[in-house]
């Protein structure tokens, strides 16, 4: 009799564990699908905005004094756009936003500092490093001479070629410094790494 009761208790414990595993699986699948859908929506919004940016560029080309920024809205998206960035190697094609806010970082990549896009100087662009996503998670795959293309709203398209990359602490912002040679056009891509404890940067120069 005691043996059977012990067995029943063991069975109960086993059942509880199994039920917990099943619940965990449901939660995991739900979160996976939600995160996948969020990425899809994010990319859809980015594509929609890119289309609007292209329309704006077409309008600006015929103007003598083109706009440097434009406020665009698309579904939940309502931001000031400065241009777009394309990195074919890692499949990035995103609008560059002016707003340096948390919400803007959730929507696309953001200009952190520097002159206007494609002007002389060092323009830094920050992007989130989502576990799944099309932002800057893959910039660590960029190596010397990989191409980064920035298009501003006047339609000017400049190719930048990677010449340096590395990891630094969050207190070190030397990668944002302006170049000594005032004629140089530099773009610096920045993202978080190690859960936000460090920064990964990629510097590219127009040839």
């Amino acid at each position, binding site marked *: *009799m005691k043996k*059977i009761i012990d067995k029943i208790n063991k069975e109960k414990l086993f059942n509880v564990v*199994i*039920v917990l595993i099943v619940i965990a699986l449901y939660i995991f*699948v739900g979160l996976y699908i939600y995160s996948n859908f969020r990425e*899809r*929506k994010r990319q859809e919004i980015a594509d929609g905005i890119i289309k609007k940016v292209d329309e704006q560029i077409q309008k600006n080309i015929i103007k003598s004094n083109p706009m440097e920024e434009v406020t665009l809205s698309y579904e939940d998206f309502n931001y000031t756009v400065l241009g777009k960035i394309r990195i074919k190697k890692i499949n990035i094609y995103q609008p560059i936003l002016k707003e340096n806010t948390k919400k803007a970082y959730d929507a696309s990549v953001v200009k952190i500092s520097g002159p206007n896009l494609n002007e002389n100087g060092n323009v830094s662009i920050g992007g989130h490093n989502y576990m799944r996503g099309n932002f800057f998670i893959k910039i660590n795959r960029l190596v010397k001479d990989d191409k980064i293309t920035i298009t501003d709203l006047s339609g000017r398209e400049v190719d930048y070629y990677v010449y340096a990359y590395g990891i630094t602490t969050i207190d070190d912002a030397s990668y944002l410094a302006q170049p000594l040679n005032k004629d140089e056009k530099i773009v610096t891509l920045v993202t978080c790494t190690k859960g936000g404890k460090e920064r990964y940067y990629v510097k590219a120069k127009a040839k």
Partner: protein
Amino acid sequence: MKDDMKLVDVSEESVIKAKDKFMVGIYLSLIFLVVFGLIIYFFGYEVLKPIIKV
């Protein structure tokens, strides 16, 4: 005594039956998870799009 035996049926046969039922329930819930998950994954985006926050 006979009534007590009826109330707590701990015979090996009944324990095995209960275990089988439980395992069937678990398998069904796993099959439901896979089928429902696949349906949502492939066809649920358009439906859920309005409530997804970017």
